[in-house]
């Protein structure tokens, strides 16, 4: 089975609030000098791809779009975790792109890679949170689509997956080829590569293509980012002191006085 995992590199979403800022020129998060990581759920998608490969064999290809120099570390980490090869679509403007545009580039790159059985993405990106790349890709690649997947088992002709729903979860049979977006689950904790894996990753093939080579010109998406604003919070916290019994007493009194309970 050939699984392609789409990885996005983002500014570390765990940065403290005071390290977060919007660049007024690009209307995106300030990236300069900030640590870059693989977007949260993309690592879970890679972990799922590696687990499926361990069970049924095949190959895992990591695919990313970004400024080639910048995404090197993300690609090397994916290879060290166990991806067999990687493809980078070199695009300096990628951090500004929206899902519709990104999916078009990813689809073109997957087309050039040739055959695939499964494409995995994170369920959302840690920056723009559109949750749209997987369904877009499914259309472009004429594949089935399931989002927010936490588990997947290979069965005859396809997969049986667990999809997180609004109320719980669904068990879904899906035919291949398919595009799945993956969310986090206790079974999908990203593995930590060992030193020998990190060394081995240096020898794995990385291809770099440009967006122009793929013939994926930036198309009009009909959506412009007009403004990105950081809401100002003005809440002042009233700390309630004392031992636990006193704290409980005071809190309940305050909430009752305010008619909150």
């Amino acid at each position, binding site marked *: 089975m050939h699984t392609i995992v789409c990885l996005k590199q983002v500014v570390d979403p765990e940065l403290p609030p005071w390290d977060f800022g919007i660049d007024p020129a690009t209307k995106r998060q300030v990236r300069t000098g900030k640590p870059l990581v693989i977007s949260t759920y993309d690592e879970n998608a890679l972990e799922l791809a590696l687990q499926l490969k361990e069970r049924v064999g095949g190959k895992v290809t990591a695919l990313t779009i970004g400024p080639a120099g910048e995404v090197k570390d993300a690609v090397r980490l994916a290879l060290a975790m166990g991806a067999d090869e990687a493809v980078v679509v070199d695009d300096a403007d990628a951090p500004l792109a929206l899902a519709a545009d990104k999916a078009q580039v990813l689809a073109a790159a997957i087309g050039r890679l040739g055959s695939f059985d499964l494409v995995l993405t994170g369920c959302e990106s840690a920056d723009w949170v559109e949750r749209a790349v997987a369904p877009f890709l499914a259309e472009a690649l004429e594949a089935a*689509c399931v989002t*927010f997947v936490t588990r997947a088992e290979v069965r005859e002709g396809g997969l049986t997956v667990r999809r997180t729903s609004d109320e719980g979860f669904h068990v*879904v049979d899906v035919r291949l080829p398919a595009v799945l977006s993956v969310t986090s689950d206790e079974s999908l904790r990203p593995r930590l590569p060992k030193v020998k894996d990190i060394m081995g990753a240096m020898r794995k093939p990385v291809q770099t293509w440009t967006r122009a080579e793929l013939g994926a010109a930036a198309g009009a998406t009909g959506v412009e980012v007009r403004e990105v604003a950081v809401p100002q919070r003005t809440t002042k916290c009233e700390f309630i002191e004392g031992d636990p019994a006193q704290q409980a007493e005071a809190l309940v009194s305050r909430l009752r006085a305010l008619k*909150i309970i």
Partner: protein
Amino acid sequence: MPGIFIVATALEGSLGRSGLELVGGARTLARPLDLEVSAAVLGHGAHLADAVDELHAHGVGKVYRCDHPALTAGQSEAVLAAVDPLVGRERPDIVLVSADTVGREVAPRLAYRHRAALATEVTALDVDGTVILARRQVYAGRAIATLAITSRPAVIAVKPRALDVPERAPVRGTVEEVSANIPSELRLQVREIHSERAEVSLDDAAVVVGGGRGIGGPEGFKLLAELARVLGGAVGASRPPADEGWVPITWQIGQTGKSIRPNLYLAVGISGAAQHVAGVSGARTIVAINKDPEAPIFSLAHFGLVGDYRQIVPALIARLKDAAGT
């Protein structure tokens, strides 16, 4: 007739709150853009008639009713197959979809097929001239982006519970039966449906008790459940407990999980990561209980209790029980 087209799914019951929220969104756009509102209601069974009535009662005149046995819970491919030709035939300017389990799979695919502009996870809608302004949270809720949707058609996927349910505004509506050409062999087939709904739903609870990594394990959530029970509320969690499997993922509150709007939110052992804060900023009063006085949650909270939740929560339960008894 071009206009605003609501994709209203009634896959497991009546229209529900999120369907009516789309009507609210449509009304916001309809007047300034001078567009009429119609809706497709998709599902199977008797409850479809109730869904149609609800749409008429809330001011949607023209309703296309699509009844097909494949249009049941979770069947996003069937919904897409049913709604796609209808959008092709009616050629609406704007298609509104709820960004629920099915909608988030359908909306981008519909946009792709009809070369439409797409905005997803939208939490507010507005109009500036002929441009639609769609707001949404970005960067784990740390910022709000305003998207200007300049082209038509446009598909807009609205985050459930973000928009208000509109007032009733009954109209004498019309219904057109639409036959769906759904392939008998779908590439996606929902085999089992599991509900992890708690006794009191997070969506509607007036009081929510949320636990974070600081709870330390699944055992601690029993204590939180006891507190929630005394308060008549629901239990939720930030991302780490859901990731760790201490609680069902449906309990997760935050950017990736649910957005809640209770009167009172008690954040217990929650540090206050942006991902979580994104889902609780609609709470009217926030109480934070955390042993770390520097935890970012205190900058959001109205009341702060610094200490060990294992001592504070039982004291709170006891005090509340006393108060109830007096």
